C-alpha cells in the first residue's frame, strides 16, 4: 500500500516482532509497577511526616522534593546510571529503571499527599482527639483517609506519568518497550510500524489505568458529596 512518500506499510512486520515487543513490555511493566508502588508509598509516608511538621525530617524531605521536582528526569537517570559509579555505586539498568521512576514520582506524590493531608479540616482531627485518640491515631483514622481522598486525582496522574516515563530508559539502553522498538527500527528501518505499535500499546495501557483510577475514585467517593 504505497502512500505519498512511497512508504509501504506492512502490518505483518509488527506480528513478526511481537515476541521481542512482549518481553520489552514485560520489562516496562516491571519497572513501572515497582516505581508506581514505591512512589505511592514514599508519597504517603514522607507526605505524612511533612504535614505533621516533624522537625529535621521535614526539612530533609523538602530538599529531596525540591531536587527531584526541579531537575529533568533524564538528568536524574543519567546521574544514577553514569555518575554514581564514580563514587562506587554501580546499579544495573533494571535497578536504575524502577529507582529513578520511584524517586521522581515519589517527589511529586510527597507534595500531593502533604497538600491533601493539610487540606483536611482541623475540626475532624479535633473531634477525634476529643474522643481520646492520640495524635498519630487521629492521623491514621481521620487525616489519612480524608487527605488521601483529596490527593487521589493528582496522585493517579503522577502514577500514570511514572508509567509513561518508563520509556526514558531508552537513554541507558535498558530494553524496555521503547528501547526494544528503537533497536528493531535500527536494523529494519520499519519506523512507522514500530512506533505505531508501541504507541497503541502505551495508549491502551494508559487508558486502562485511567479507567482503574476512575473506579477507585468512585469507590472511595464520600456519600453525599464534598
Amino acid at each position, binding site marked *: 500500500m504505497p502512500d505519498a512518500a512511497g512508504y509501504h506499510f506492512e502490518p505483518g512486520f509488527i506480528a513478526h516482532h511481537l515476541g521481542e515487543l512482549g518481553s520489552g513490555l514485560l520489562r516496562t511493566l516491571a519497572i513501572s509497577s515497582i516505581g508506581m508502588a514505591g512512589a505511592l508509598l514514599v508519597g504517603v509516608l514522607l507526605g505524612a511526616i511533612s504535614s505533621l511538621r516533624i522537625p529535621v525530617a521535614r526539612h530533609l524531605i523538602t530538599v529531596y522534593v525540591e531536587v527531584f521536582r526541579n531537575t529533568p528526569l533524564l538528568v536524574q537517570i543519567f546521574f544514577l546510571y553514569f555518575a554514581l559509579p564514580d563514587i562506587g555505586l554501580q546499579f544495573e539498568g533494571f535497578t536504575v529503571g524502577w529507582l529513578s521512576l520511584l524517586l521522581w514520582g515519589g517527589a511529586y506524590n510527597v507534595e500531593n499527599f502533604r497538600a491533601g493531608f493539610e487540606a483536611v*479540616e482541623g*475540626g*475532624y482531627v*479535633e*473531634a*477525634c*482527639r*476529643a*474522643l*481520646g*485518640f*492520640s495524635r498519630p*491515631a487521629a492521623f491514621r*483514622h*481521620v487525616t489519612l*483517609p*480524608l487527605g488521601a*481522598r483529596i490527593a487521589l486525582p493528582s496522585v493517579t496522574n503522577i502514577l500514570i506519568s511514572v508509567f509513561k516515563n518508563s520509556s526514558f530508559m531508552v537513554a541507558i539502553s535498558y530494553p524496555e518497550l521503547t528501547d526494544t522498538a528503537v533497536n528493531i527500527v535500527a536494523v529494519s528501518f520499519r519506523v512507522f510500524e514500530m512506533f505505531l505499535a508501541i504507541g497503541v500499546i502505551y495508549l491502551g495501557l494508559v487508558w486502562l489505568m485511567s479507567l482503574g483510577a476512575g473506579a477507585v475514585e468512585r469507590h*472511595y467517593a*464520600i*456519600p*453525599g*458529596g*464534598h
Partner: protein
Amino acid sequence: MTNPPSVDGPSARPPADPRAAMVELRGVHKSYGSVEVLKGVDLTVARGEVVAVIGPSGGGKSTLLRCVNLLEPVSAGQVLLEGEDLTAAGTDLNTVRRRIGMVFQQFNLFPHLSAVDNLTLAPRKLLRMPKDEARKRALALLARVGLADKADAHPRQLSGGQQQRVAIARALMMDPHVMLFDEVTSALDPELVSEVLDVMRDLARSGMTMLCVTHEMGFARELGDRLVFVDGGVIAEHGRPADVLDRPQNDRTRQFLRKVLR
C-alpha cells in the same frame, strides 16, 4: 455552691451532688502568644450539674471549654476532673479525654464513615470493644436520639440537626462522665434547633454533668442549674439562670442581655 430547686415544675432530674466536683478550673490562664484570652478563670461544675455559659463573641467561651479537656494546654492554673489534676506532669490526656464528651458547633462528624461507624470508631479502637457489641450499643444510642433509621447514612446525607444528634451519640458511646457543648445549635436552621435541644434536655434529665456554651437563653433558663457569663476572658457574673437573666448585677451582663434578648 448550692443546687437551686427546679423552677420548671416536674423535672425528673436527680439533684446534683454539691459535694462532688466533676470539673474544677482553678485560676486558669490561657494566652496565644502575647494575647491573653483567659485571665484567671475559677469554675466548679458539680457532678450532675448543668452549667450554661453565655457571653459575647470573642469573650473566651470556646477557649474555656477547650481547656477543660485540654485540647488547648493552659498557660497557668489547674484543671481537675473528678479530683484528678489533669495539668499535673505525666497525665495521660488521651485516656482522660475518654471521660469527657465534646460536641462542636460544626458537628465534625467523620464524613467518610457512616453514622454507626462514627459511633463505633472510638470504642472499637480505644476500648477494643468487639464489633457486634459496638454496633449494638451504637444502634441503641442512635435510637435514643431518634435516628435509628439513619445508622447507615453518611454525615453529608443528613440534615444539620440529624448530624448534631449523631455527634452527641458519638460522644456518649464512650460513657463520658461530663459533656461539653460548644454552641451546638448555632450552625442549625432555626427549625432544626429544637430536635437537638430535645436530646440535650433528655441528657440533662438523665443526670449527665453538662457544660454548655449556648446562645439559647430559653434553654439556659430551663435546664441550667447555673449560668456563667464570660466576657473579656473572665467569669464576669454567675448565678441561678433566672437571677442572672432577669436581674443581672454586672453592667457588661446587662449590655449583653439587652442585645441578645432584644
